[in-house]
């Protein structure tokens, strides 16, 4: 072989770099074409949506951020004629009142106890909700046994522990919203499961009472239950005897949520094929073993969306306690927005926007978490 022929011959040592696909089939342009302008209907819908976004988003942004006022100590900070420019949301008001929104009238010197309660709550929630957390069974005991006791002692106080007692009439704001929803959520699931089992029980008396309770409670609006508790109940009790004003709606909310939860759980129980029951019985499991190990784990998994839906509904329903004079977050916003020191045109909007953001973040968090749990628990059945 001579050198010249070798030089002419071409052998590629490396593969050719792949040529980019035509720009019209990949990349942002193609994505837009495929997803936004795929056909005439699609194009029209996209344009309408775009128009709505352009019309609504900039003014909202302008109101809540660009024209917003972030600092100030009284109404002058948020008055257009003082500032000489249009004024959007008055966040200075929320910042000034934030302690009231979080703690209500809880005595200032004792507010560390509320903070401690929030920390303990976060610890318990984290332990329970983080699926890979160590010793989760201990976490459950902490959350359902230790934490409620600690929280009760911390918040109401006792002379024995050297904590000044704080009457519940001083509790308010986010603290009360959290307590009412927590009690409702924590009570409703176990009570709901028991009621659902009772309703499907073969024992007539148990079934009868479960049905009566569920149908009666579902048959009246929550507001009626609350009015009964806070307005009617004191008339029936002997003069001077009172049940705490906060405990009354707490019990009402817990009972109410349980009835709804029972129906959700019953839906799950009915979705379990008969073979599962028969299989469990043929293994020699008794009723409770069958329920705990075979039926409920499957039934509850099916109804996770329903359960979370009930929780979210309950969380938002807690604002109804405001009507019977309990100072939850909405009530504190309403009480403080009339403060003449903060009288300005946008105060109402700002106050409600703050409450809206708080509720949205909480409900959105719950729903995202439940989606994640659902995906994880359904791993075995993914197709």
């Amino acid at each position, binding site marked *: 072989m001579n050198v010249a022929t070798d030089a002419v011959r071409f052998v590629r040592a490396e593969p050719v770099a792949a040529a980019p696909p035509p720009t019209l089939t990949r990349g942002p342009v193609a994505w837009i074409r495929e997803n936004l302008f795929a056909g005439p209907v699609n194009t029209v819908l996209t344009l309408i949506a775009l128009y709505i976004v352009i019309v609504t988003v900039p003014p909202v942004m302008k109101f809540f951020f660009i024209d917003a006022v972030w600092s100030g100590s009284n*109404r002058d900070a948020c008055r*257009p*004629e003082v500032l000489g420019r249009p004024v959007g949301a008055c966040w200075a008001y929320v910042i000034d*009142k934030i*302690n*009231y929104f979080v*703690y*209500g*009238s809880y005595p*200032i010197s004792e507010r560390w106890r509320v903070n401690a309660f929030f920390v303990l709550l976060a610890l318990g929630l984290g332990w329970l909700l983080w699926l890979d957390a160590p010793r989760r069974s201990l976490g*459950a005991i902490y959350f*359902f*046994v230790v934490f*409620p*006791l600690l929280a*009760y002692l911390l918040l*109401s106080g006792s002379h024995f522990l050297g904590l000044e007692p704080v*009457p519940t*009439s*001083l509790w*308010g704001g986010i603290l009360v919203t959290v307590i009412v929803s927590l*009690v409702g959520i*924590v*009570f409703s699931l*176990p*009570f709901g499961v028991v009621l659902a089992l009772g309703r499907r029980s073969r024992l007539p008396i148990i079934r009868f009472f479960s049905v009566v309770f569920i149908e009666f409670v579902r048959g009246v609006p929550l507001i009626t239950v609350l009015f009964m508790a*806070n*307005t009617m109940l*004191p*008339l029936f*009790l*002997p*003069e*001077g*005897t*009172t*049940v*705490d*004003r906060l*405990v009354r709606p*707490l*019990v009402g909310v817990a009972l109410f949520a349980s009835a709804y939860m029972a129906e959700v759980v019953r839906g799950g129980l009915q979705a379990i094929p008969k073979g599962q029951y028969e299989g469990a019985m043929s293994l020699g499991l008794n009723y409770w073993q069958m329920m705990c190990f075979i039926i409920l784990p499957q039934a509850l998994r099916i109804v996770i969306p329903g359960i979370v839906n009930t929780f979210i509904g309950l969380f938002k329903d807690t604002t109804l306690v405001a*009507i*019977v*004079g309990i*100072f939850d977050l909405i*009530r504190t916003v*309403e*009480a*403080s*927005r*009339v*403060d*003449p*020191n903060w*009288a*300005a*045109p946008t*105060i*109402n909007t700002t106050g409600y926007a703050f409450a809206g953001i708080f509720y949205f973040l909480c409900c959105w968090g719950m729903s995202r978490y439940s989606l994640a749990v659902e995906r994880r628990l359904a791993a075995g059945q993914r197709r």
Partner: protein
Amino acid sequence: MKRAIATIAVGLAASLFAGAAFAQSTLNNVKQKGFLTCGSNPGLAGFGVPDAQGNWTGLDVDFCRAIAAAIFNDPTKVRFIPLSAKDRFTALQSGEIDVLARNSTWTMSRDTQLGLDFTGINYYDGQGFMVRKKLGVSSAKELNGATVCTQQGTTTELNLADFFRSNNMKYEVVAFATADETFKAYDAGRCDAFTTDASGLYAERLKAANPDEHIVLPEIISKEPLGPVVRHGDNQWADIVRWVHFAMLNAEELGVSKANVDQQLKSENPEIKRLLGTEGKFGEAIGVTNDWAVRIIKHVGNYGEVFERNVGAGSPLKIQRGQNALWTKGGLQYAPPIR
């Protein structure tokens, strides 16, 4: 988990039951509890509003603090139960609260048919009108043909109809469900005039885009005497509540204020001596100590001070004393003498 939470609920309930006692007299009951339970407004500018720290302030709030000061020498020994207009009287009837100071209008049916007693009038309110300055109206009688914004289903709406009919004037009413909506509509120019209780007019005006462009007309077209309420039948308690208000009025009339009460204790004026308990046993006669008025004035102040601080010149509301001035200054506030 159920058990733990049930334990808490039961524990809470039990501890609250244990604290309750059967009422003999309201005063003894209050002394036994160690605090006064006062039905208050859940949020009304100048009368009951929480400050940034959650402490309640306002004219009605200060009245309850004055009662607590007279009984306990401590204005903080009062628990406020914010009540809606619907459940305020039920809460009093059921004994849940000891006194109701929640801008409640004294009417015959409330006084006679509910088993309740009004003990006095701590604020003379009445329905008024607000208009834009540029409308050029200086009296409500000139409002013929005007559009008026008001709240639906309130006595305000009825008073409005009465006023225009009795003056043979035409008007058009634009009614809204909430007070906020009503004022917003007026502020946006939907109506010529806005009507509600006069104290409310001042509070709403502050929220206007340009408060200086609006004026409150001098006419008051309805009587809204607001006062504290107690249960019928416990006359000793009614006496205390009634005379707390009178003591604050007498203090203002005699020039005894928060600042000078200690010097006034040495005063030789027999009226001041009787008020401050350096002469006579007027306090003991109603079941409190003889220095009861000193306690009220020292901790809360006289009526004028309370008024100025909460709704008057010292507050953003800047309401004139008007009918609420002392009788010596052309107003209606008149207290019987202590003797």
